[in-house]
């Protein structure tokens, strides 16, 4: 009954698989042919290659290789190389300038700085667990792209195909919901494909370790419901139009700019406050607004999946609550889509 939508979804997933496959292939080629002098150890050797520098290498009992490099000024670099399982690099000495802003955690790389009385210490670990939320950014973006492609499913039927869609032995409501169901499965599948490919890409370089904590389920639900709510919004905006491609572009722009404009409320001028309040209210209906990424002081990506609103979150509610609101929005937008569609005439 929903074969048409299944074909559309299949075509979209097929293209996605090709794109992800090409990206993975490029990553694999880069990994295979990456010159060894671009790897950490050799880079550090190169940097400290001045006169008076000497290094020593020992093999540790756990199989790791420890390289220690000393220069004439007393700066020391210790590299413990676990190969695929990552590296620990510590740079210390009087010549090491410590800047606390350098404390970051990106993916599996964490940089920590320790100021001392004479210089300081910087440690770089490349085997840190990757927060699940950070790993969901890529799949979230892929999900939103696929949601945009498949979104407006009803609008596509409105473009000369209602005579086919509405003369099947199924009600219009069931027809619409069935189409949504197919697309929802396809979007989740696309996010899963992107996630698997992302982890596989990381695995080409090092052992991927994913930080799964108590919020993991909520974070996954936030990402999935956020994307699905965006898909439902695309449908609600286009279900009474013929096609609706242009409207989807408007939805994109609105989804990005409405939360940004709500920040006008922070400006202490009345007109800005009013504008900010209006857009702040509109932002409550914007799925992307709920997906802002929050980076804590420690550098941890604390929540969210898609940094689509540049760090400004319309809701400061906890992740599970945000996921729930997104689920409600999804249902609301689906209902609006069906209500509009069933009232049309072919």
């Amino acid at each position, binding site marked *: *009954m929903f*074969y048409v939508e299944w074909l559309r979804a299949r075509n979209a997933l097929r293209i996605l698989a090709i794109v992800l496959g090409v990206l993975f292939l490029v990553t694999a080629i880069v990994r295979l042919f990456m010159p060894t002098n671009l790897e950490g150890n050799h880079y550090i050797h190169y940097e400290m290659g001045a006169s008076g520098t000497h290094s020593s290498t020992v093999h540790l009992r756990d199989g790791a290789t420890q390289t220690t490099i000393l220069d004439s000024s007393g700066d020391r670099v210790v590299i413990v190389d676990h190969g695929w399982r990552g590296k620990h690099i510590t740079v210390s000495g009087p010549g090491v300038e410590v800047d606390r802003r350098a404390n970051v955690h990106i993916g599996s790389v964490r940089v920590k700085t320790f100021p001392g009385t004479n210089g300081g210490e910087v440690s770089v670990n490349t085997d840190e667990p990757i927060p699940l939320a950070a790993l969901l950014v890529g799949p979230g973006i892929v999900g939103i792209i696929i949601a945009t492609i498949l979104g407006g499913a009803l609008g596509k039927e409105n473009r*000369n*195909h209602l005579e*086919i869609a*509405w*003369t*099947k032995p199924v009600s219009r409501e069931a027809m619409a919901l069935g189409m949504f169901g197919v697309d929802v499965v396809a979007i989740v599948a696309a996010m899963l494909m992107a996630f698997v490919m992302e982890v596989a890409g990381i695995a080409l370089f090092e052992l991927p370790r994913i930080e799964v904590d108590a919020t993991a389920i909520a974070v996954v639900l936030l990402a999935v419901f956020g994307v699905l709510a965006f898909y439902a919004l695309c449908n609600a905006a286009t279900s009474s139009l013929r096609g609706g491609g242009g409207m989807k572009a408007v939805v994109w722009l609105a989804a990005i700019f409405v939360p940004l404009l709500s920040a006008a409320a922070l400006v202490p001028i009345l007109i800005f406050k009013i504008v900010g309040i209006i857009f702040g209210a509109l932002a409550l209906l914007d799925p992307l607004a709920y997906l802002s990424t929050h980076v804590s002081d420690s550098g941890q990506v604390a929540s969210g999946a898609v940094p689509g609103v540049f760090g400004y979150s319309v809701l400061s509610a906890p992740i599970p609550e945000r996921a729930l609101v997104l689920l409600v929005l999804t249902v609301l937008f689906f209902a609006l889509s069906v209500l509009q569609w069933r009232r049309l005439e072919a």
Partner: protein
Amino acid sequence: MNITISHLTKKFAATLAVDDLSIEVPAGTIFGLLGPNGAGKTTTFKCMLGLARANHGTVRFDGKTLAPPLFEGIVYLPERSVLYDWMRVGELVEMNRRAFKRFKAERALELLKTFGIDANKRCGSLSKGMKTAVAVAAAFAREADLLVLDEPTSGLDPVNQRHVLNLMVNEAARGATVIFSSHQIGQVERAAERIAILDRGKLVLEGAVDDLKADRKIVEAIFPDEHYSLNGLSGDKRIGRIDRSGRIVRVVALDGANDLARRLEEAGGTGIRVVDLNLEDIFLYAVAPTSARADVVEGS
């Protein structure tokens, strides 16, 4: 499937597209819906099938109102192509197979072969006629109880047009009801058992084709000069229309043509002729009398 349309009315803003239309289509018949462009044929079809909302009136299928499960046995072939351009013809067949329990994929593929269409082609790459043929193949493989066909031969070559007419006849022979519209009146005359003629949304004529043709005649008479009297004929209810052209008078007789011929003779007319009407004449007299008069003048 017996179709009863009662007082169907559909307005688009100020335009009355279908005006209080009532038609009964008996089960197993081929019913032709005729009318000039904008007469309301397509709107009637759409209102029948719930694709457009009627402002007033009802449509019943074997006494039942339309509900989604009924579409298992109802085929609608729209006038314009509604195929998905990106879809392959074979996928369209598969779509129908999945949607309709009674759909026979082998039959559809066989019909496509007859029309010379490659199932691997994308619908968007087909010509208008080929798109019609694809839709026809899918429609006639449904084993439906009711086929609503809006211009089913549009864009087809004469060979395939004849093939579609034969398919319609076969469907009716199987017991299905076929309602179709066409601008090619010859086709309607060939295939339809009953017709209805619409003009500006109104039903202007309805009946069995044979009856309409048997009843309706043109009676022609020539008078000695232009100052003649019809001897009270103009009030006769058996007369559909009287056209005068100089000394010539033509009377469209709805019934009793021979009696009317006699009365014209009594009124002084000479060269009396009773001419049979074909369906095209009937149609033109019903919806465009001016064109009909010109046509008859040339034909007589």
